[in-house]
């Protein structure tokens, strides 16, 4: 007898947390076999997430009334921990699964050394498990714990190569992350002191625009902006992301930063929603414009390929801030913001993977001397270009759909009578031009005449995975309707 999908959902949600944790624990316990465990674990978690999303979409309008909530161990909300699955977390779980699977396959080719393999795989699987828990957690204190799991394993991965630059970048990243976490925790403590509950849904029901909420909002927002490298708290990003190994950079820029942004969005759509005023929205939007200009300028003058990509993350996250005032005028715009973040994560991860392949082949990533290697590796350059086109937002790519929808929301605010809407529209359109400039800078050396230089041999995984992920990023536009539909299944959001 076949039961309705709703009855399976809670088991599938708890199972996802259990499975990803189990894979991480087993890989830590048997480091000798970590790469095999990691590969099969990655495939299993990926399949599980796809199954979960099928169940979730099939459960249909039931999920709209109330998101699926699972009480761990049968302890209900005020005391127990709740897992929480809605359209927003489902979308980000699928994104994480896609990028994480691509990164795992890439790492098979990237990390050969026996000792390095033992160190890399357990850390990477912990990071993935932490991200899965972050997207599924519905409890403020538990969110702090998952943030720490994610950031500690991310820091260890940044320090992975063990060079002075990498360890220094890791220390900077760790100090910033602990500061952000403590600030977030202080906000959680204030909310707990005021309302006596930690569950996000219960907090949302009790929240009002009081002084405690204001203070908590300032602390938690500042902490998460620090972790998400949102302007002006972004200075740590380029040293950390630029000095990490390629698969790690891809995950940091694609997923870890997006995770902090997800939490920020969730808080401001729920607990802090009564505090959002138009003036605050404009302030955040102006920060976004500054991020777009500053990040693009740095990307245009950086001399290393991976630095360009890292600075472009700062610039692209400016869009997410610019979208904030749009959300206040047109509440529906938040879905576009999430879609943009999804497309950005896919494209940015493939750009970093492609850059890693080129760096591996050339032995360095100084743009001025990369010409020969770029000419000899058309497949990788094509991946770089394809993902870059999605970042720019040229038609038929995922980036185009996302920017088109953002522009539409921006024009909507102008029609609604907001003068400053003109600035948002100019920023969204102009940011695309700046993106085009730095993406072309990355691929331009390939088109100069000169000798080819194949450089060091590259494993097939490193050759094909960036191209595959870039194709997914470009085709994400066709999944736009499905993504936006999934996102409507988020209760409490407009």
């Amino acid at each position: 007898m076949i039961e309705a999908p709703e009855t399976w959902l809670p088991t599938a949600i708890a199972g996802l947390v259990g499975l990803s944790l189990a894979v991480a624990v087993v890989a830590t316990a048997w480091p000798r076999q970590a790469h095999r465990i990691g590969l099969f674990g990655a495939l299993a978690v990926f399949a599980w997430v796809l199954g979960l999303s099928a169940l979730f979409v099939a459960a249909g309008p039931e999920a709209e009334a109330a998101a699926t909530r699972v009480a761990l161990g049968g302890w209900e909300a005020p005391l127990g921990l709740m897992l929480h699955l809605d359209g927003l977390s489902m979308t980000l779980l699928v994104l994480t699964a896609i990028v994480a699977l691509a990164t795992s396959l890439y790492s098979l080719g990237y990390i050969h050394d026996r000792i390095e393999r033992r160190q890399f795989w357990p850390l990477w699987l912990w990071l993935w498990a932490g991200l899965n828990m972050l997207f599924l957690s519905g409890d403020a204190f538990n969110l702090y714990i998952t943030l720490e799991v994610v950031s500690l394993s991310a820091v260890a991965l940044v320090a992975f190569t063990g060079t002075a630059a990498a360890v220094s970048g890791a220390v900077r990243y760790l100090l910033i992350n602990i500061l952000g976490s403590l600030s977030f925790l202080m906000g959680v403590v204030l909310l707990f002191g005021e309302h006596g509950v930690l569950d996000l849904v219960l907090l949302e029901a009790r929240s009002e625009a009081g002084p405690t909420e204001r203070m908590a909002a300032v602390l938690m927002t500042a902490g998460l902006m620090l972790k998400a490298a949102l302007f002006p708290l972004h200075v740590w990003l380029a040293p950390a992301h630029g000095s990490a190994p390629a698969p790690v950079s891809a995950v940091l820029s694609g997923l870890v930063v997006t995770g902090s942004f997800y939490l920020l969005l969730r808080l401001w759509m729920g607990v802090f929603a009564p505090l959002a005023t138009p003036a605050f929205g404009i302030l955040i939007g102006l920060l976004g414009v500054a991020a777009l200009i500053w990040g693009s300028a740095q990307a245009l003058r950086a001399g290393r390929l991976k630095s360009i990509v890292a600075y472009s993350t700062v610039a692209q996250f400016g869009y997410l801030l610019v979208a904030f005032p749009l959300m206040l005028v047109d509440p529906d715009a938040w879905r576009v913001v999430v879609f943009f973040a999804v497309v950005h994560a896919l494209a940015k991860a493939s750009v970093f993977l492609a850059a890693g392949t080129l760096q591996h082949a050339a032995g360095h990533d100084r743009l001025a001397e990369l010409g020969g290697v770029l000419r000899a590796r058309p497949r990788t350059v094509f991946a770089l270009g394809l993902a870059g086109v999605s970042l720019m937002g040229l038609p038929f790519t995922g980036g185009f759909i996302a920017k088109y929808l953002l522009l539409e929301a921006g024009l909507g605010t102008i029609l609604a009578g907001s003068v400053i809407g003109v600035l948002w529209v100019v920023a969204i359109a102009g940011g695309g031009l700046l993106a085009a400039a730095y993406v072309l800078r990355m691929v331009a050396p390939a088109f100069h005449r000169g000798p080819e230089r194949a450089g060091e041999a590259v494993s097939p995984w490193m050759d094909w995975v960036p191209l595959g992920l870039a194709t997914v990023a470009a085709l994400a536009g066709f999944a736009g309707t499905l993504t936006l539909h999934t996102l409507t299944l988020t209760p409490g959001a407009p």
Partner: protein
Amino acid sequence: MNGLAELAHTLAPGLLYPTGGAILFAMGLYGLIRRHHLVLRILALNIMGSGVFMVLLGVAARGEGPPDPVAQALTLTGIVVAVSATAFALALVVHLTRLTGHAVMLPGPPDDDAPVEDISREEHHADGGPAAPHPDQDRNP
């Protein structure tokens, strides 16, 4: 001075601890920004953490009756996380000190501001002349 002691005595723990915690948090933040030695920075972060836990204990002590066990459990969990993070940070600092000889951070990645204007020039000049672009020059460590 006597008046001050009396004032502290009359302050309920529900007010004393949060105020003290906020002061610790601010002091730690100041130390984190002003100090450059990494061990001092890690200590500053620990002081900030103690500030957060003091506020949490104040929350637990507020109201009538016995203290709130949930807040105390949260404090314990938080201390465990803080200890692990501190241990990890200290290990990284020890490693960095072995590599560089100093317990301070390096100023950003090398080559980041390398001049870039020579890309096109170098390539165009390369097509005819014998000045073929150095195949192995960029292999240096």
